[in-house]
């Protein structure tokens, strides 16, 4: 039963789209309602399944899924001509990410209730995007994984192009093409992995049971890792995210920054590092060096920016840098911190972009120098933004702090010069984060208010639901992180064991 529920997760949005197609656009309310309800249903299902996974704890899972601890494991032959299977399964890590996705999708749909343009198509596109992300987090077969992973490009451009603001075409193209570039790197290495392994199988578990030839790993790992890192905006492939986010409509920014950027980091962990641990051990210290830009310089760039979405984009860049710091730590705490950061940053940036979008709907500008003192007129949204800000600068009580403390402590346990160095820099740069966040909040919310904003009205119920929901998610993780940490630990253990067991010896290389 649970397995069935798990398998319909990605189907429900498509079903909703299929139902909505024949409904004429005159009944747009009904269509939107349909989509929101389907989103709620999915979220409910995933919430229930999360609970199930939590209750199962470390109980032995389907042996076919060894070494991973997968619940609801399903494995059906799919495309015989290329030996692709439909293989899905859930462990603590990806069920939580699934929940994050469903939450962001749900809130995103609520946020874009009154979006301009053809709403029918927009909601359909959101649903398709949701499907793709669900699929990525569910699938344990590389072809399936890649198919879902690449699907995002299909919706992203249309959404940004059709419904965005500002320089939509440039932003959309930059985003789509850069992501496509990343996934082309991934695809190239996927073929390599398949044929080097000689297993005639794309299954992650099967591939993780063997050791790929070292001199293949040595070039394949960096290519694949960077390919994934592109979508997590790791330097030097971060340039798509500021322009993309600024051009995208609110919901798309939420989804892109909140969920899709996690797909990359998730791929790095679940595919690249899991399948090629030996090379990972050799390469990751150099990846850490790149983080100096993400983590240390990113906030500084945010300081110099005036556009809310640019600021948020650069804050995402720095936060995702922390994810990679956690991954590169190669310690259980670090990996857990990275996964926690994925989840927490998802909610966090969702809240960020949601509030920004709502404020933008009212002020019609995102330039913080144009605003000021709107806290008086929009207390609720103001508080929402400030909470997002504090969560962003890692205030205890919110999830961000938990993730960051895990990452810092975990990364410091990695006894390599460069990692230690970057970790210290990262810890020190929490100040810079505080600087740009407070500067933004003060310029926008405090001080004296331009007269033109006298007529602003505060959030309505729908928007309040969104903000409150996201804040609650942040708080729950932040106040009682124990259970989530347990779930992540049990699901990360096999990955870490494999990495720990790997003996890194460069052959040719």
């Amino acid at each position, binding site marked *: 039963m649970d397995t069935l529920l798990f398998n319909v997760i990605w189907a429900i949005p498509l079903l909703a789209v299929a139902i909505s197609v024949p409904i004429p656009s005159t009944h747009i309310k009904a269509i939107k309602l349909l989509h929101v309800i389907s989103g709620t249903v999915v979220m409910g299902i995933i919430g229930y399944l999360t609970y199930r996974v939590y209750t199962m704890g470390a109980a032995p899972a389907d042996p076919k899924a060894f070494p991973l601890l997968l619940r609801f494991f399903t494995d059906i032959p799919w495309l015989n001509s290329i030996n692709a299977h439909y293989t899905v399964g859930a462990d603590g890590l990806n069920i939580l990410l699934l929940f994050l996705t469903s939450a962001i999708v749900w809130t995103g749909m609520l946020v874009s209730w009154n979006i301009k343009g053809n709403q029918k198509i927009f909601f359909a596109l959101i649903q398709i995007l949701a499907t793709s992300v669900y699929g990525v987090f569910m699938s344990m077969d590389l072809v399936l994984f890649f198919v879902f992973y690449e699907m995002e490009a299909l919706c992203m451009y249309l959404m940004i192009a059709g419904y965005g603001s500002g320089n939509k075409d440039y932003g959309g193209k930059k985003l789509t093409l850069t992501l496509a570039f990343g996934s082309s790197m991934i695809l190239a290495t996927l073929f390599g992995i398949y044929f080097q392994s000689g297993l005639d199988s794309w299954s992650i578990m099967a591939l993780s049971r063997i050791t790929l030839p070292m001199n293949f790993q040595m070039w394949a790992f960096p290519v694949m890792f960077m390919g994934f890192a592109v979508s997590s905006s790791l330097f030097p492939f971060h340039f798509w995210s500021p322009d993309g986010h600024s051009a995208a409509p609110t919901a798309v920014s939420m989804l892109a920054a909140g969920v899709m950027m996690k797909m990359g980091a998730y791929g790095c962990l679940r595919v690249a590092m899991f399948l090629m641990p030996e090379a990972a051990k050799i390469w990751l210290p150099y990846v850490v060096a790149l983080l100096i830009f993400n983590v240390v310089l990113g906030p500084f760039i945010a300081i110099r920016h005036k556009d809310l979405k640019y600021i948020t984009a650069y804050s995402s860049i720095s936060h995702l840098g922390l994810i990679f710091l956690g991954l590169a730590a190669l310690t259980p705490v670090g990996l857990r911190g990275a996964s926690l950061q994925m989840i927490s940053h998802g909610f966090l940036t969702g809240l960020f972009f949601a509030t920004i979008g709502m404020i933008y709907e009212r002020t019609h500008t995102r330039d913080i120098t144009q605003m000021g*003192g709107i806290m008086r007129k929009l207390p609720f949204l103001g508080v929402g933004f400030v909470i997002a800000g504090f969560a962003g600068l890692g205030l*205890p009580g919110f999830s961000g702090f*938990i993730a960051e*403390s895990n990452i810092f*402590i975990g990364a410091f346990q990695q006894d390599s010069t460069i*990692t230690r160095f970057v970790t210290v820099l990262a810890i020190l740069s929490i100040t810079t984060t505080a600087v740009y966040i407070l500067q933004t909040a003060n310029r926008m919310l*405090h001080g004296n208010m331009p007269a033109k904003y006298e007529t602003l009205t505060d959030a309505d119920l729908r928007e309040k639901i969104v903000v409150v929901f996201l804040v609650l998610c942040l708080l729950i993780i932040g106040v009682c992180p124990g259970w989530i940490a347990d779930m992540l630990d049990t699901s990360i253990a096999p990955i870490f064991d494999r990495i720990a067991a790997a003996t890194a010896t460069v052959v040719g290389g």
Partner: protein
Amino acid sequence: MINGITLSYFIFLLPLLVFVINGLFVGNRSAKGAAAIAVIGNGIAAVCAILVAVDYFTSGMAPGKVIPYEFTFLPFAGFNANIGLLTDPLSMMMMVVVTFISFMVNIYSIGYMRKDRSAGRFFSLLSLFSFSMLGLVAATNLFQMFIFWELVGVSSYLLIGFWYHKPSAVSASKQAFILTRFADSFFLCGIVLVSYIVGSFDFSVINDLTLHDFYHTTINLGITTISQADALILGAVLIFIGGWGKSAMFPMHIWLPNAMEGPTPVSSIIHSATMVVAGVYLVARLFPFFAVCKGTLNIIMVVGAFTMVFAAVIACTQKDIKRILAYSTLSQLGYMMFALGVCSMGDVIVATGWTASTFHIFTHAFFKCSLFLIAGSVIHVVHTNDLDKMGGLWSKMPFTYWCCFICVLAISGIPPFSGFFSKDEIILAAFQGHHYVVFALALLTSGLTTFYMFRMFFLAFHGDPRSDLVRGHRIKEDFAMTLPIVVLAIPSFLGGYIAKGFFEHYFKPGSLHVPQLVKLEELPWLPYIAVAVALIALFIAWVCYCSPKAKISKALDETNRTRLYKTVYHKFYFDEMYYAVVRQFVFGGIARTARFIQDYIIEGLLAFVVKALHKMGDLVRFAQSGYMPFYLGTLIVGIIFWRIFGQLPL
């Protein structure tokens, strides 16, 4: 102490509850209701705290450290981050002080915030602060301490910027938060480093370390590789930097005076009585650790002593009543800090400084808080912080006047007022630690303290009124605002005398792994010296500002003065320096460079790639000239081309 445990839950939960209720439900509807809830909640919390303290001290387990309960907050590999309650004399004392003062300030705020529309928010934030402060003092480990450390920082930020339409308040709050955050980043570094080496966050573990077993193993810090023992010392310094920023020691002091932009009750509870002593509390809490790490105590001593003198000098020239108090707070914090520092005498430790410092925390909390409240009600009357507009208030507001007199005497260290005892002990400790320079400075500073406090006192209350608001009108002292002042004046009066023995009996830094000096020379003449200095300073102040032939207007005029006076008056231009550094170096230098890298180098490379592709595309399209002979040519050329490059075995 079952009873105690159950009560102790209330100490934390009540303020939290008040925060939630006021913040979410009551706050923006009725200010009165919010005030009522806040006062009741914090009142009960205070009562609980006192009961628990009594329970603790009578149950005979004092001065031992007890951890009644502790929950695992977040498990790390090998060690846990817990949240719990640590009961020992220090934390008990702090709890009582915090809850009691926050109770008083809540009462006071009823009057002070009567006309403010968003009073509800104020009360909820105030409770948030006391909750986090309590969590801080109850901390059983560094992790918990850091959590609540940040929370007090945030609540302080929110309360300084409470009037967010005032640009000065907003920028002050930003400055306060960022500066403390800057210090906290080092604090966090220290925590990570120490916890990595020690393998635990717990104070109990960290406090009975000895460096011996760490000399052999080395640790790689990225830049250099040093022995773990040195790393521990480094960690101790880093952790102290956290306290450094929080307690606004020089040169991270500038945020505290600027923080006076906030509402006065906030200044009184956060920026004088409780939060700013968190730094001192941290050092006191980790004292055995610092004692083990050689040299750190000396740093602490130097920082504290310098700040003490520095702030006192500035305070002598200020005209803003709240800033005077702020600088006096700085200087008093300096006392506490160096009192902890002077404990190190070469390789041995003189524990008296520790006792003195904690004792001073206690006494200072009361009189400084009440002084701020007094300043608040004065400002409430004359609607300005400026001493220019005051004077002659003594007849108008007698309660306030007499309480102020008591507190000023207390801070000046005139017996039998509370300040005398604690300060006396601190100075004595400096002498016993054989730090004679600090000893001299401390004496001098106590003189300065007396001078500027009485300067403020005389200018505010004596002389003839310089403000129309005072002149002629009869002023009614608000009961809600006067009651706490009076109540707080009592411990400022008697607190020292009563609590002296108590402190000397219970307050010991705990088991140290360094030799302690047990027999110390007594200084019977010290009190007389101190009092004499104080009285002389008092007399000078009287001559300058209160005596019939004192030229008040001239004394208050800062324009035509010597350069030295101006420099001091402008706080040695430290704000300007900070401003310049931040503007030029951080925003101008680093940030601009980063932006440049982003906008020109990275985007430039990207643009180059796209351009190159387009150029090649143009080439292809140029070949598509529509000229058929050329096309036919491509067929022929194509064959030859592939004949040459086709890699055919031909």
